[in-house]
């Protein structure tokens, strides 16, 4: 099975972020980067499918030069080769432009399954996977909790709202966006890092893939959340106050 797994490099979760001068993205100077966490679960799922059914795992990203280290991490964890669509334009790009770049590279090769994380930790569109499926003309399913690829088709468990699940069957090839936490992600090993050096690593420029300058969505303003404090007194009987409090915790604070 030829599995493509799309990974994105994002700023590390513990980074101290501040908007850049144009107010369109965060300053990335002095910030460390890591693999988008939801994509780590997609990569792990791809590696497990390969271990069970054989084949090849190809890690692919669209991003600036520094994103190569995220692909190297995927190789160190067990991906067989990597493809980097390299361009600074992908730092602030939207889901469509990213999907376009990924599609242009994946389309060139046989693929049985394409996996992505459910969403990215930075922009959080949650759209790249589904747009990519449309561009590749693949059937797709989102928020996948389980994949059974033992038959000719893919039998998958999807997470729905309120604790509900759905089991669906898709033909191959297909694209799945993977829910975070569905597996225990493996660590890169020291030998894995050493072996990664010798694995194939293909770079494409957007021009090589015939992709024009993307102009789809533009960030107008990005700002720090404004912090404020306010006190509200709930009034009524104990029962009424309890009901109001419950309502606020559930729907405003969203902690229940």
């Amino acid at each position: 099975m030829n599995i493509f797994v799309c990974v994105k490099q994002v700023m590390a979760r513990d980074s101290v972020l501040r908007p850049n001068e144009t107010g369109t993205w965060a300053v990335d100077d002095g910030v460390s980067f890591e693999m988008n966490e939801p994509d780590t679960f997609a990569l792990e799922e791809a590696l497990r499918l390969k271990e069970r059914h054989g084949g090849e795992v190809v890690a692919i990203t669209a991003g600036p030069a520094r994103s190569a280290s995220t692909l190297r991490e995927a190789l160190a964890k067990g991906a067989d080769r990597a493809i980097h669509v390299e361009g600074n334009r992908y730092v602030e790009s939207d889901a469509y432009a990213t999907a376009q770049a990924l599609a242009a590279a994946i389309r060139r090769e046989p693929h049985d399954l394409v996996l992505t994380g459910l969403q990215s930790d930075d922009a959080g569109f949650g759209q790249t996977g589904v747009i990519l499926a449309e561009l590749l003309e693949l059937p797709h399913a989102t928020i996948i909790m389980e994949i059974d690829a033992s038959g000719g088709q893919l039998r998958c468990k999807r997470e729905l709202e309120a604790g509900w699940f759905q089991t669906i069957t898709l033909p191959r090839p297909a694209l799945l966006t993977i829910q975070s936490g569905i597996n225990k992600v493996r660590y890169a090993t020291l030998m894995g890092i050493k072996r990664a050096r010798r694995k194939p690593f293909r770079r494409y420029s957007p021009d090589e893939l015939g992709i024009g300058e993307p102009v789809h969505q533009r960030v107008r303003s990005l700002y720090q959340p404004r912090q404020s404090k306010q006190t509200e007194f709930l009034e009524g009987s104990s029962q009424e106050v309890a009901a109001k409090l419950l309502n606020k915790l559930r729907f405003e604070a969203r902690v229940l």
Partner: protein
Amino acid sequence: MSYPLDEEQLQIRDAVQDVCSDFPSEYWRKLDEFQGYPTEFIRALTEGGWLAALIPEQYGGSGLGILEASLIMEAINASGGNAAACHAQMYIMDVLTRRGTDRQRERFLPELATGRLRLQAFGVTEPTTGSDTTQLQTRAEKRGDSYIVHGQKVFTSRVEHSDLMLLLVRTTPIDDVRRKTHGLSILLVDLVEADGKGIEIRPLRTMINHHTCEVFLDGLEVPAANLIGEEGEGFRALLDGLNAERILIAAECIGDGDWFMHKACGYARGRVVFGRPIGQNQGIQFPLAKARAHIDAADLMRFRAAEMYDAGQPCGPQANMAKLLAADASWEAANACLQTHGGFGFASDYDVERKFRETRLYQVAPISTNLILSYIAEKVLGLPRSY
């Protein structure tokens, strides 16, 4: 990090950080409370091959340099953990790699690389002899194909969590040798085999969770085939491993320093007193800024020493200076961090007091700061030996 790392070195650091992220502060805090050993953490490191970094590739290790090994130690301490539970595996096996016979290397190194065997303990210090190693009292007498060992060791760390131990013993009485550094030998003790046969191990509760023990040796029989290096040349073999140890310990201090800086600055940014973050006050900023500068300076010396070590050059002064500067810098950072936190620094939940205790050790062990100063005075400044 004050030094440009290549891509593979960055990957090594990031991958160890990844492993460490599964072992958060709560994990170390709990171990500290009950003086527990980080078994799961060590297992994860071993499975990833991290503790076999210095073992040559032909024996199943990665054959990396001391620089890469030091990055591993640094990342562990910078994560809030403590590399003391495993660092000795790195530099103790170095003695075996350098001085062991082919047969010993083939017998032990592959199993150490896979983690099936652990070599984490080196019995050197004794109750009456610390830094003055040549005066040690533990003696081994050759009888047929074995050595019979009598004596006592103290501060033998991790011996309860080790399958093998190196033991420094006197094989020729000090009165019968020309130089007091002669007549010492290193024996490899199979602790599983030796259990109940002339060895008794008693844990020693200490200020930090360091798994250190007293070891009583009363007629312990060690096969002569387990002699590491030549008989009587154990002191030289011991010295061989010291530069590696100094560099690795320096890296742990750098990691601690980074942890203290991260913790202190995070707190200083968020803690508001008199209507503004305390980090805006120069009284808070200056000690932290100073500590940062000293950590980075020590870091440069660590890299210099590691580069020289990996190039096979003599690096005693650089390795010792790296350890001295790094231990001082981490201690300075610990103080600044604790002061920044005020009363909360003393609360266990903040982890500052635990790391404060842990980093204090580096002023004393594995070598006292004073002894490094004496070394620099003698070897670098050319002054008369003071000890």
